[in-house]
């Protein structure tokens, strides 16, 4: 069933860091230089200039944990939202289709920063949600809309004949979707989801406006008391860079494994 299928159709969505494949030698080298370069620079700053930088490195680690929590929580929830909305977008039921499309259109039309304020402060008047939870929900709600489009595109990239074949074998539409279409679509959507994950990791810095002590907020707290703006933001930028490069590598390895598997 897997033969003669265009399952590797690349879908270009999102603004994440490029995921380097081994075949792309230029980018692969750039990845190495940036990744190891920033690690070396961090070590150099921490141990070469401990008077200025060591304190920053000691101040921010809890922030990395929070950033990580927000990112992972939001991406998992966004995949759920995205899958539901994505299936809704290709649904033949006009009501479901309409609701899903409305969600995608409305959410994509509102800046993430505004959504964060909205979910945190506006909804905070009616329901009590802890700060981190509301940050995760807001991020997931926003990214779910983009994710929906990825899932929709991924499902539609599977050849029509697949569905027809499954139906002719006596499967129901639902069975066919779950057992035939989605497993194949998953492979197509994995790279863009990886991209979204990295974009989300970067965008998670926006939650620092919600008094969530993420990496950026820890840095801002440190800088606002010591006035070491340059030093602090250098460290913050380097840590974000190391994180995004590390995860982009992880995604590309996962993708390679998946390609080898078929």
């Amino acid at each position, binding site marked *: 069933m897997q033969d003669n299928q265009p399952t590797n159709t690349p879908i270009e969505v999102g603004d994440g860091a490029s995921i380097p494949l081994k075949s792309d030698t230029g980018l692969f080298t750039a990845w190495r230089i940036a990744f190891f370069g920033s690690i070396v620079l961090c070590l150099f700053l921490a141990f070469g200039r401990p008077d200025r930088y060591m304190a920053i490195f000691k101040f921010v680690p809890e922030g990395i944990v929070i950033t990580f929590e927000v990112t992972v929580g939001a991406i998992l929830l966004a995949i759920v939202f995205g899958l539901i909305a994505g299936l809704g977008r290709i649904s033949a039921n006009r009501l479901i289709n309409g609701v899903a499309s409305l969600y995608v259109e409305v959410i994509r039309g509102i800046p993430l920063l505004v959504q964060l304020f909205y979910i945190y402060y506006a909804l*905070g008047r009616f329901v009590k949600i802890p700060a981190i939870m509301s940050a995760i929900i807001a991020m997931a709600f926003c990214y779910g809309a983009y994710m929906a489009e990825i899932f929709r595109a991924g499902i539609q990239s599977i050849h029509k004949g697949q569905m027809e074949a499954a139906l002719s074998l006596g499967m129901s539409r639902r069975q066919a979707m779950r057992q035939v279409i989605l497993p194949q679509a998953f492979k197509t959507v994995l790279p863009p989801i990886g991209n979204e994950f990295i974009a989300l990791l970067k965008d998670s810095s926006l939650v620092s406006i919600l*008094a969530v*002590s993420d990496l950026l907020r820890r840095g801002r707290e440190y*800088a606002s*008391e010591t*006035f070491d703006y340059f030093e602090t933001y250098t460290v913050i930028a380097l840590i974000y860079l190391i994180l995004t490069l590390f995860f982009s590598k992880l995604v590309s390895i996962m993708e390679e494994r998946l390609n080898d598997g078929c």
Partner: protein
Amino acid sequence: MKILRFLSVTALLSALLSVSAFAAPKSIKVATDATWPPMEMVNSNKQIVGYDIDFLNAVAKEAGVTVEFKNTAWDGIFAGLDSGQYDAIISSVTITEERKAKYDFTDVYTSIGQILVVPKTDKTSKTIADLKGKKVGSQIGTTATMEIKKVDGVDSKTYDEIGLAFEDMAAGRISGVVCDEPVAAHFALQKQEYKEKFKIVGKPFTKEGYGIVVKKGNKELVDLLNKGIKSVKAKKLDAKIHTKWVK
């Protein structure tokens, strides 16, 4: 001929420029974080107003300069001074040793203290120490934040603007807010929706003086502003401004 004309035009222009440079009063650019009512805020006409604004305008008048205000977010306000985006900051800045090490201040122009605001439902808390194990909010990088961090066991939450801290307390996410006393009074005693919800507890527990901040070594501007401050105080203009904004 052409060269002559060019020369005469340039001479005329430079003469004009130098004349206007001397004739026009010196203008200074001053940053303020206008989210700190009643000291500095944006009114419904989108103008920056408040105690600090009126005070500095009075000082500038005495010193013979004009002021151009720039609304700037608090947690980058000192960085902007470093990079020369403005000449001074007047934004309820408490003179502290840490800040004095990096920047120069004018003389104290008004004194205030930090105070604690809690929800009315809290019948027992009187100090920050009574809120151990709970979250207490303040604006990022203020002397209030430093006071909260001094108390062990209290979870410090920092906000970009003090209004957001009060809003978060209204939503029940934090148990107290610490800020300058006039600001606390504005939010807890005057703002309609918060009046029923919040109360100020205890007395101001710090003694702090506000100063105008300039870049380290800018003695000329410090002297000019100090001269203006002296003159304003001698004429008792600051008392009038105080009654206008801080009742």
